[in-house]
């Protein structure tokens, strides 16, 4: 099996999860409700854990250790989509991002349960329950706040419109996309995007929110190629600050 397409896929998934996990963890202690603070923090931990498992796969394929790749790369070597690096803003934005990203993430892992790359299909089966919880959490909040009060509906609507072009950047194709598909590693971003749109429409249709027209949306691309907003490097600096003081420290 050709390793380059696999590595590319693993890097972008791991980077998405690491960066979003870190972003979401910034809410710890500041969440809008004690119970929600705990739930959101737990899911952030899950994401870091999933990224760790993917970085370990990369190590097995000859890449550097998880800590090194997580903490020592500059922003332009990260393959995450730009959606996950955006600042948290108000909680409505964080929640909408969580909904849009985790819907795609859960569908991606579901597709990967059939992957010809066995470490990935095994991991996909293992974390099914975590993904079930993440999407249950996101869908339940979106349904509640998307039907609750004028303020909650208008806040979610505004965040939805702001996040959507970035969310479409999740599905930026890899230059090695056709090899991923032909080797049965992953069925591809286009196929994922179609499933994602259907699922997003299904959940949003139970609320008073409106989706922007898919056709007129211009996706924010470039993240998969290392082109990022000004928000990523400060996040990386903060995330790796302690590690860089003493890379050999034992925890």
């Amino acid at each position, binding site marked *: 099996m050709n390793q380059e397409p696999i590595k590319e896929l693993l890097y972008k998934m791991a980077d998405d999860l690491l960066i979003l996990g870190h972003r979401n963890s910034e809410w710890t202690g500041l969440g*809008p*409700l*004690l119970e929600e603070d*705990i739930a959101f923090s737990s899911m952030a*931990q899950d994401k870091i854990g999933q990224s760790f498992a993917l970085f370990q796969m990369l190590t097995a394929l000859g890449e550097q250790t998880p800590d090194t790749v997580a903490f020592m790369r500059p922003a332009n070597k990260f393959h995450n989509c730009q959606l996950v690096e955006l600042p948290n803003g108000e909680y409505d934005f964080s929640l909408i991002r969580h909904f849009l990203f985790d819907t795609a993430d859960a569908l991606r892992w579901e597709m990967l349960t059939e992957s010809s790359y066995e470490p990935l299909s095994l991991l996909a089966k293992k974390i099914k329950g975590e993904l079930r919880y993440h999407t*249950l959490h996101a869908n339940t909040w979106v349904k509640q706040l998307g039907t609750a009060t004028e303020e909650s509906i208008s806040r979610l609507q505004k965040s939805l419109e702001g996040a959507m072009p970035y969310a479409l950047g999740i599905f930026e194709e890899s230059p090695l996309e056709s090899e991923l598909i032909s080797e049965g590693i992953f069925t591809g971003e286009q196929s994922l995007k179609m499933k994602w749109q259907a699922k997003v429409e299904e959940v949003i249709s139970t609320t008073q929110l409106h989706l922007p027209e898919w056709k007129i949306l211009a996706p924010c691309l470039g993240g998969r190629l290392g082109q990022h907003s000004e928000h990523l490097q400060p996040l990386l600096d903060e995330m790796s600050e302690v590690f860089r003081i003493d890379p050999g420290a034992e925890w």
Partner: protein
Amino acid sequence: MDEILKTLDPRVSRLPKIGQTNPKKQLDQFGTFEVFVQGKAEKPFQHEGAVHAPNLELAYVLAKETFTRRFTCYSIYVVETRNVFVSPTTEGNQDVFDLISNEPAVSEKKTFEVYHLVKRGKQHVHAGSVEAGSPNEAMLKAKELVETDKIVYNLWAIEKNKIRFTSEEENDLWNTLPEKKFRDASDYKGGDKLKRFLEGNKN
């Protein structure tokens, strides 16, 4: 310091400033829901605590991380606090069944989950399910579920159709939980590390 105190938690941010007294507004917080946890498949459910939530489904979602983010879990369920009917609590060695009235129930039979308190200061534990026409009748019938030598101090009766259960396919929610040892302080073996550090400094 000021930064740290800027929390969005309404229970903190609504606290009055020192010296200021605000009358409590009606319904300024979410309602509460009771959470019942089954740690292992062969163990009974027991009451763990309450969560605040705007509805039953969100209560389920929030209960899962509030009460089952460590160790093991097989299943949970939640019910709105107002749907938990509570018997009087006895004093000393009095049995709760002596305090439950014998009035007959007139409405149609429903299934109730009954919880009992057999050790003071511990949680209410699931005693079993009964068919009854009222919470009171459910508590009376619960006598058959309890071992005769046990004194029961308090009973709860919950109508089954008011409960948000974990569905069979949702049992995988806790699959990876035993691996999340990083949530236990003991996993960091701080004592061992300190000991090694101090011994290293001696030499």
